[in-house]
């Protein structure tokens, strides 16, 4: 089980409460697809991903970003039980979606960059550290059922 200090839990929920899930989710996924274009390999049915502008305006990217971040919220609500929370999703990513777990780390770091852009100086070193720990825990939980 992961050890969270009271401070870390507070930082994580405070930031989660502040952000627009739809906006941040869309931005994080957009950046993944723009900064690491090879990640587009998982989204061949998403339509036009031919340029950063196309990706930014793509409604399927926006929707999927929102879906992914909403799901991420389950971790925020269940910090003491992230592994169990993502048990089925881990299986799905491994057996049906065939996603390289490295992508969980890339998306996690991108999410953090979007949080920094959204929160500015409020995204302190301590805030970043708490969120780095969270994205690491989520990535590990999602990777857990690969075989």
């Amino acid at each position, binding site marked *: 089980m992961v050890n969270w200090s009271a401070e870390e839990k507070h930082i994580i929920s405070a930031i989660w409460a502040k952000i627009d899930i739809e906006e941040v989710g869309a*931005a994080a996924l*957009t*950046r993944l697809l*723009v*900064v690491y274009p090879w990640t587009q390999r998982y989204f061949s049915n998403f339509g036009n991903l031919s340029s*950063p502008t196309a*990706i*930014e305006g793509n409604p399927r990217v926006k929707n999927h970003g929102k879906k992914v971040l909403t799901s991420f919220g389950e971790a925020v609500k269940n910090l003491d039980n992230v592994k169990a929370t993502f048990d089925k999703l881990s299986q799905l990513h491994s057996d049906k979606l065939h996603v390289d777990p490295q992508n969980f780390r890339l998306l996690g*770091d991108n999410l*953090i*960059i*979007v949080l*920094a*852009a*959204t*929160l*500015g*100086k409020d*995204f302190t*070193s*301590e805030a*970043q*550290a708490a969120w*780095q720990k969270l994205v690491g825990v989520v990535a590990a939980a999602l990777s857990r059922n690969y075989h």
Partner: protein
Amino acid sequence: RDTSGSFYEFQASPSSEQGGHRTVYPVKTSLSLLPRLFTSYPQTKTYFPHFDLHHGSAQMHAHGAKVVSAIGDAVKNIDNIKSALSKLSELHAYILRVDPVNFKLLSHCLLVTVAAHFPAEFTAEAHAAWDKFLSIVSSVLTEKYR
């Protein structure tokens, strides 16, 4: 090329006259870079046993400024990063021997710092350009390791 250049202009504040030399240094980003690295990735502190690592330490600020300035040199010589960073590359290979994994961590923290200070300018495209640029800088700095 365009996005990297203009960031360094944004970052170049304030400028100061120091003994007749005009020093323009990126204050905003250098101040928080190392604190971010050390807080999120405490293992990176192992390379600085000789430093005062408390928040706001003059040593940390100076070192952060040094790093950001060197990256600035690479920006100015973006078509020949290898030659601009040649001495630094040797320093890292033979003296400092920082494990290559840490360049990714520092690069990430630099991107976070830039995003926090310049959110409007740090578009997805700017982010892509910077990520690419920093990964090239990292490989130049580690290319003499073996």
